[in-house]
Structures are given as C-alpha cells and as structure tokens.
C-alpha cells in the first residue's frame, strides 16, 4: 500500500507573509555594489485588524502575531493599555509577569542556540545532523525549551490559545503546588544553564568586530524585561513615550520592508545589546560565568550573540526561581480596569529585542489605532549593514555556497522573527568585473 518514496509536504504559509526570504547581492570589481535583504513583513494587517476592536480583546489578538513570542506581544500591549486606563496591577502581577517573560526567553533562546545557531558553528547543515554527534547538547536544548513552556503554561494552561494575560493582571493564578513543581525543575535545570554559557563561549565563533549602536531598555535595578527607559551606548536615554521623536521608519525602495533608524542610522536590539547595556544588572552568578569565558563584554562582535543568549538563559532560570520560590496565591489575579480615552505606550524586551506598541483608545474602550514595532523590523537595517561588512571581510570571491552559508549565519545571529513560511534564503548574486 505505501510506496517507498519521499513525499514533500508543504505546510501552508501564514496570511501575513508575502514570500520567501531573499538576499540580492551585486558584486562589482571585488566590492559589494548593492545588497538588498528582505526577510520580514511587519504586522500591518494586525494593526488594521485591531482598529474598532474592544480594548480587552487586544491581548489575545496580538498574541497571535507571533507563535514563538506571544507573551512579548501581550506584555507590551497590556502595559500600554494600563497606562491609558491609569491601572497599577500591583506587585504580585508585576512579579508574575517577569516570571512569565523568563519562561518565554528560556524557551525562545534555548531553541535558537541549540537548533539554529550551534549547527553553524559546529559545521553542520542543520540540527538533525548535529544531533547525531551531539545528542546530549540537543536534548539539553529541548529540555530547557520544554521548561520554558512549562513556566509559561503555569499562567495559561496547555492549549493552543494564548496565555492567560489580561489587562489588570492574569485570568488565573496557578496553585502553589503547581508553582512548586516548576521551581523544582528550574533548580534542576540550573547546572544545564551554567554549562550552556561555557559551551557557547567555547564554540568556534568568528572574530568580526563592527561599529554599531546598541539599544535596549534600562531599569533602576533590574535586568530589563517589562519596564525601563530606552537607552543606547551613544547617549540615548528616553522614556518609551518619546520613541517616535528619535526612531523613524523609513520605506526602503526595493521592498515593502521598513527600515527603522535611530537618528538616521541603523541600530541593534536583542540579547547582545541588552547584555552590553545592562551587565551591571545581571546577578553575580551570571556575571561570574560570563567573565570566566574570557570573552569581554560589552562586545561588538555579533557572533557573540549566542553567548549573550546563553547568559540570558542562565539569568532567566535564576530570576524565575527567585520570583517563584516564595509563591503565594493572591486574593485576586487581576485588578479590574475601566477603559477611558487616551494614547498609551508599551515597550518590553521580547527575546529578540525591544517590542514597542502604541494604542489610541476611545471613550468606549475601542481601539482607534494601533502601532506595533517588532524587534526584527528594527534590526533589518543593521542586518544589511552587517552583511555588507561581513561578506566583504569573508571574501567575495568565495564559492556561492560558502557565501550563502556565511550570509545565513550572519542573519541567524539576529534570531530574526521570520514568519513561519520563510524556510531558506534565496541568494541571487550578480557579478561584474
């Protein structure tokens, strides 16, 4: 009955994606004459879709934007809305939201380090090949990822519906026994997270230091997740509401992509930027592990992103234990919120970098307008700049296959949130003498 042949199954493309990733490269006289990268479509459809909706539907709606980081979208949204409604959900909600975000960082970073980035640096075409030689490391990654998902599931249950975040707090508070079980698993995972930092730092990471500006949140005493000012390593320090006065989206002629620029220049968001700007906010244990690697931070070598991600995995485990070890079920998991008209902003640190939301709400609590700037959008200009520099340093006379792999590795450093459909890079190279 069944034939022995390979069946190629194409899983359908999501609604908001209009095509595969593409990198167009034109080389003239041994230099890059032109480079165009198109890999990310901003969620414009969602912004439109939100108009007219009731504000209480926003958290569930925006969670659909990203299958990998729904929590980030919900966090930026609820902070913006609570700002408009003048709601302060209190210390329990604040702490639990940090724990939830730790779960998402843990899940996202573990996946990226082990399944996407490590194969590049160990010389494998993909994780499937790598897993045969490094099964323990891959299993470690899957275990950490599963633990991240469990942490998230504490607040939302196991289903395909988004986590139980709502304006004012959570729909549901987990039982103390459930939380205790997860804390036990987090403690058991701590040695894995510690080992991960050392392991990533020992990988064969290219030396490629470039000049660029880092942007992240910075808070009075915490490593940033949900709150803080937006800062850079070039003297920027602004409240999140001032974002639009400094960051501008600029339509790129060659595609529908928008390049986000800070004072007219590309910039980096994400784990490397966060670590660079917030080293002193990391717990001693994480800083010590990082110091022991021998890699100096702040670092402007994008290939060190994998180490920054590992440090954030270590941080997420430690911080989640801290937040949950004395857990108590609250009287109520949320504060009721009455909508009112106004404009509000939310900016939180998604696994890939700052995710900025702006909403305008009317007196009936309906969304008049929504603006969502994801981290990958913000990194696109920097990625193009990086590719130019990296490929030239790598050597443009190399074989197409080697160039393509280098380009993909450079892109993977950014852990871009490409919609599910973009499976591979189509590389078009035109060479003229």
């Amino acid at each position, binding site marked *: 009955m*069944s*034939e*022995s*042949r*390979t*069946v*190629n*199954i*194409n*899983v*359908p*493309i*999501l*609604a908001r994606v209009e095509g595969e*990733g593409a990198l167009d490269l034109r080389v003239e006289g041994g230099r890059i004459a032109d480079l165009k990268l198109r*890999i990310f479509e901003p969620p414009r459809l969602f912004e439109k879709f939100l108009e007219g909706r009731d504000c209480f539907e926003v958290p569930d709606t925006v969670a*659909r934007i990203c*299958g*990998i980081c729904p929590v980030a979208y919900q966090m930026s949204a609820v902070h913006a809305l609570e700002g408009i409604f003048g709601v302060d959900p209190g210390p329990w909600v604040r702490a639990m939201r940090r724990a939830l975000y730790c779960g998402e960082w843990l899940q*996202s970073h573990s*996946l*990226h380090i082990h*399944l*996407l980035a490590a*194969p590049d640096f160990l010389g494998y*075409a*993909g*994780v*499937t*090949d790598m*897993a*045969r030689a490094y*099964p323990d490391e*891959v*299993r470690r*990654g*899957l275990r950490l*990822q*599963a633990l991240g*998902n469990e942490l998230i599931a504490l607040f939302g249950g*196991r*289903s*395909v519906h988004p986590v139980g975040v709502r304006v004012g707090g959570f729909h549901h508070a987990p039982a103390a026994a459930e939380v205790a079980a997860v804390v036990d698993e987090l403690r058991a995972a701590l040695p894995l997270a510690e080992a991960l930092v050392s392991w990533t730092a020992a990988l064969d990471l290219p030396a490629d230091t470039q000049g660029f500006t880092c942007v992240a949140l910075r808070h009075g005493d915490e490593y940033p997740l949900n709150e803080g000012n937006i800062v850079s390593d070039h003297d920027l320090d602004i409240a999140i509401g001032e974002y639009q006065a400094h960051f501008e989206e600029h339509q790129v002629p060659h595609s529908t992509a928008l390049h986000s620029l800070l004072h007219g220049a590309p910039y980096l968001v994400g784990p490397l930027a966060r670590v660079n700007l917030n080293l002193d906010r990391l717990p001693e244990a994480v800083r010590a592990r990082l110091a022991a690697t021998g890699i100096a931070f702040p670092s402007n070598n994008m290939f060190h992103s994998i180490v920054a991600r590992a440090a954030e995995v270590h941080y997420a485990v430690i911080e989640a234990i801290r937040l949950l070890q004395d857990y108590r079920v609250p009287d109520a998991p949320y504060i009721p919120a009455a909508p009112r008209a106004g404009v509000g902003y939310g900016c939180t640190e998604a696994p890939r970098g700052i995710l900025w939301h702006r909403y305008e709400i009317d007196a009936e609590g309906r969304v008049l307008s929504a603006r969502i700037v994801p981290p990958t959008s913000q990194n696109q200009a920097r990625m193009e700049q990086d590719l130019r520099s990296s490929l030239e340093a790598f050597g443009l006379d190399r074989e197409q296959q080697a160039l393509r792999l280098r380009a*993909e590795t450079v*892109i*993977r450093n950014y*852990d*871009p*949130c*490409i*919609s*599910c*459909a*973009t*499976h*591979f*890079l189509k590389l078009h190279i035109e060479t003229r003498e």
Partner: protein
Amino acid sequence: MGRVVVVGIGSPFGADRIGWEVAEELKRNEALHAFPAGSVAVVLCDRPGAGLLEHMRGADAAILVDAVQGGGEPGAVLRIEGDAIGEGQAPLSSHGLGLAAALALGRSLGELPKHLVLIGVDIGAEQEQEAGAWQRAAVAAAQALVLREIETVLHELKSLNQNPFSPQRRGGAKDSFDNS
C-alpha cells in the same frame, strides 16, 4: 497497554486550523470512549517545532493531523507514513522548524514513537482558504481515518504485549492519558 497520542497541528490562520478542528471534534467524539481508558490522548499543537516532540514523548504511537498542500483537490485526506516525510531545509528562524524538520530531529535523537503516521488534509493551492463546503466533509473523513488508525495501532500493540518475547516498553509520559 499501548498509548496513542493524536496531535492536531495547526495555526490560527484560515485553512491551517483544520488540524485543530479535527482534534477538537475527536475529543467530543463518542467513538473515543470505545478505547481502553488511558490509552488515547488528543492534544492540539500550535505551529509545530521542537514542541511537537514534547507532545509525542512517552507515546507508543503518534497520529499527527495537519493541513497539507499535496497538489490535490481541497478536502482530499491522505495517510502518510512517518518515514516518508522528507527533511526540509535548514531554517533561518525558529518558525522555520516545521513539521518535517521537527520529525527529522526526533528521528536523529531516537525519540520518535515507533508508530508514526500523518493524516494530511489537502487544503488545495490557495494558502488562505477559508472554510468551504469541502471542509466539513474533510474533517469527518480525517476523523474516521484517525479512529481507524488508533484501532489498528492499539490492536498491534496489544498483540505485541501478549508476546512473551516482546521488549519492555518505555514508561513515564508526563501528560495524562485519558479519553477526554
């Protein structure tokens, strides 16, 4: 006793929900109660990836249900052996770890259940197909195939267990197995 997990794979968009719909209807289906208590679990999986392996952990058999583009008419329901699913490309992003790649990873770690089948519902060429008349019939047909598959697998596992020379099964699934 054998343990079977049915995983409805999908995403919130258009016809890509169909794996979820099949799973949700299955959960309500009386026919599931015919199987021994604890032998069948039905779960939903949002955009497969490494998480898919978690769903299958501890099961003797996995029956995956997902929308596919097999080049046929919308509504055609296909049964595909796990071994026959190709590997896919090296992904650029976490989203890129689709069904084929996730299974390939599981295979290389030696973690896939021995019995693995994909029930694919062909949604035709248009990626954002919304519900059409074909959808109801396809969901029913897919359910029927899944139920038949469960029956076959449980029967095979039972006869294996009655064989005094069959190897010990791995135990300890974290998810509870019940027919709800």
